[in-house]
């Protein structure tokens, strides 16, 4: 109880509540703007947190993370343009409901479902993270290596254009993390004589380049988009009848979203799609989905926001990110001198309560901001792209420069952006690369230690049951996409045969 009060007390400072609110407003803004994403905003915001205390910095980023997922639903409902990928499923029923003249009801359903999903997942975070940390503290380097390998293998299953490309990008990220001085032997690796690379590839400029500059280059040939707008009337909280209709959907989606969030590498987008599918599967009005029914909004919204709390569980308890946004938060924690993982929760358990309190405040804040400002946020898409994207570029330049006041970092950002743009074109997303970059040091450090302990024998490592379990899960996770590919191929052949028959 004392720890809880200490943790809450760490956040109950007006300055910290202030930065959480700023994070929430930025999150809703970014979430509402198509093209801008939460990971991009977190990457751009990290440099602002340099002078802050670690708690204030992480609270601000956590606030942005929660709100960014919700912000996308505003534009998904009002203009059928999901501001963020996790809100894509919300548009399926949100927009038709808004078109019927019930925009306020749709926004109210989305807000209440999001907040409920978020808060329920935070409660699970509070219960699961210490338990997981207690188990993880008994892990040897072999188990940690196997776990990190499992997290990397999950990249094969995350949404994207290709499992093979996700895995390659993840491994390239790990390879990039080996640049610089090898800590165990002091040997320089892949620095090519560049002094600035001795400490490794600068993390923040790479993030900004891959998420912001690559997207900016993609947007350079997109014309101004004119969206068909639905009149945004005042947001209405769900009626008693709506509550009755969505309560089980919200509970089911919250559980599902939290579980998906906990899985390493899986994030809010997958949770939202599955939340929608499950809401439909359990509904006795399946045929009404897509026409604007409350369950079609509540399902994905509760799931995508629940995934944010879920993703924080492995991030805090194991130091293994649950999603790309939490990978960035994890990177920011390391930048602020924290080492996420079981020892952090063991030595500073109040930190977990502080994060819980920050995310709780963020959830309540975006509910208030969402109710008050939905109409305003939907107008954000009126900002001309010729003003929006130059602003992103200015933040990208200054954000890359700020960490070490070095123009070398701006070069890294520009090159990462150009490489990221070409990677996007050929089907390699930035998310797996960043996950690899974050997981890289964990994988290598534990691999090296485990190899020394086990006399350079992987077989000797596999005598440990948990290592065997994680290796088994890795194989299953790699086999998942192969199974899906075979099924998709069979479905396609069947469809073609049917078409030929007709």
């Amino acid at each position: 109880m004392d720890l809880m009060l200490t943790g809450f007390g760490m956040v109950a400072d007006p300055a910290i509540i202030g930065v959480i609110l700023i994070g929430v407003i930025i999150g809703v803004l970014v979430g509402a703007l198509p093209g801008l994403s939460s990971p991009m905003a977190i990457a751009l915001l990290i440099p602002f947190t340099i002078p802050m205390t670690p708690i204030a910095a992480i609270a601000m980023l956590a606030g942005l993370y929660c709100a960014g997922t919700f912000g996308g639903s505003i534009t998904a409902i009002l203009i059928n343009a999901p501001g963020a990928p996790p809100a894509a499923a919300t548009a399926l029923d949100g927009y038709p409901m808004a078109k019927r003249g019930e925009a306020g009801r749709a926004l109210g359903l989305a807000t209440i479902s999001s907040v409920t999903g978020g808060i329920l997942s935070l409660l699970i975070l509070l219960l699961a993270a210490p338990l997981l940390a207690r188990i993880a503290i008994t892990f040897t380097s072999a188990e940690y290596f196997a776990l990190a390998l499992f997290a990397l293998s999950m990249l094969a299953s995350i949404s994207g254009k290709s499992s093979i490309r996700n895995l390659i990008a993840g491994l390239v990220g790990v390879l990039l993390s080996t640049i610089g001085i090898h800590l165990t032997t002091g040997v320089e690796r892949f620095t090519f004589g560049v002094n600035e690379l001795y400490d490794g590839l600068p993390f923040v400029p790479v993030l900004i380049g891959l998420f912001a500059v690559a997207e900016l280059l993609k947007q350079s040939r997109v014309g101004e988009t004119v969206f068909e707008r639905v009149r945004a009337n005042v947001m209405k909280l769900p009626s008693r009848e709506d509550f009755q209709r969505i309560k089980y959907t919200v509970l089911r989606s919250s559980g599902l979203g939290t579980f998906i969030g906990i899985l390493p590498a899986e994030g809010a987008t997958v949770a939202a799609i599955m939340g929608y599918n499950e809401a439909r599967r359990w509904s006795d009005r399946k045929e009404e989905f897509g026409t604007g029914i409350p369950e079609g909004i509540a399902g994905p919204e509760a799931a995508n926001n629940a995934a944010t709390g879920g993703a924080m569980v492995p991030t805090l308890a194991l130091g293994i990110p649950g999603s790309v946004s939490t990978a960035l938060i994890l990177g920011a924690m390391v930048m602020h001198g924290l080492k996420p993982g079981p020892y952090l929760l063991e030595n500073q358990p109040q930190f977990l309560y502080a994060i819980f309190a920050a995310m709780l405040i963020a959830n309540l804040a975006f509910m208030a901001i969402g109710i008050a400002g939905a109409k305003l946020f939907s107008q954000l898409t009126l900002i001309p792209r010729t003003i929006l994207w130059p602003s992103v570029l200015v933040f990208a330049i200054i954000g890359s420069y700020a960490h070490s006041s070095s123009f070398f970092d701006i070069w890294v950002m520009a090159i990462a952006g150009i490489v990221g743009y070409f990677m996007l074109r050929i089907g390699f997303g930035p998310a797996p690369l960043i996950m690899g970059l974050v997981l890289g040091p964990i994988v290598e450090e534990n691999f090296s230690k485990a190899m020394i302990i086990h006399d350079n024998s992987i077989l000797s490592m596999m005598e440990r049951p948990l290592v065997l379990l994680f290796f088994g899960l890795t194989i299953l996770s790699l086999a998942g996409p192969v199974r899906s590919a075979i099924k998709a191929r069979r479905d396609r052949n069947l469809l073609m045969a049917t078409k030929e028959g007709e």
Partner: protein
Amino acid sequence: MNHDTGGKDAREAGLQGGPRGLIDGPDTVLALVLIALCGLLYWVSAGFPEPGLFLGENVLPEHFPRLLLIAIGVLALLLPFEHRLEVDRWPLIRKSRRAPIGASTVVTMGCLLILVGIGEWIGTILTIVVAAVGLPLLWGERRWLLIIPYAAIFTGIVTYLFSIVLSVYFEPGVFGLTLR
């Protein structure tokens, strides 16, 4: 796990004349480039200095990167056959790969590199001012009444925030521009 990120469009694109051959040409080239890069880096790793005698008992510094390079190389070997495996999602890759790179994208890339190149010389403040004015102009914005107030107010706020509030050192450049 739901892998359908492209939905109906992807499936239809796949049905409408996807490649019938065993290997895909552009992906074969991509695989060859990746394997060549892996080979090059493997060769570079052979040049890593020897660790000291005592430290040499650890896992050697080239060991882990080499494992990664081999894994990337093996995965790259699958790329030419990927269109046969990922029938649902591969059409999306083909679509984005075939989309032309616009002149505006190339010019934006070039200008970005030039701006970064001259950044240290003109200083940090001028670099962000040039970015705030140059990019709208480059993308066809001609409303000066929008560009000038935006550039002045926005870059002013950003500069003040980082230089004064966050105490970030700004390179003054040849013009000696600094707020501190």
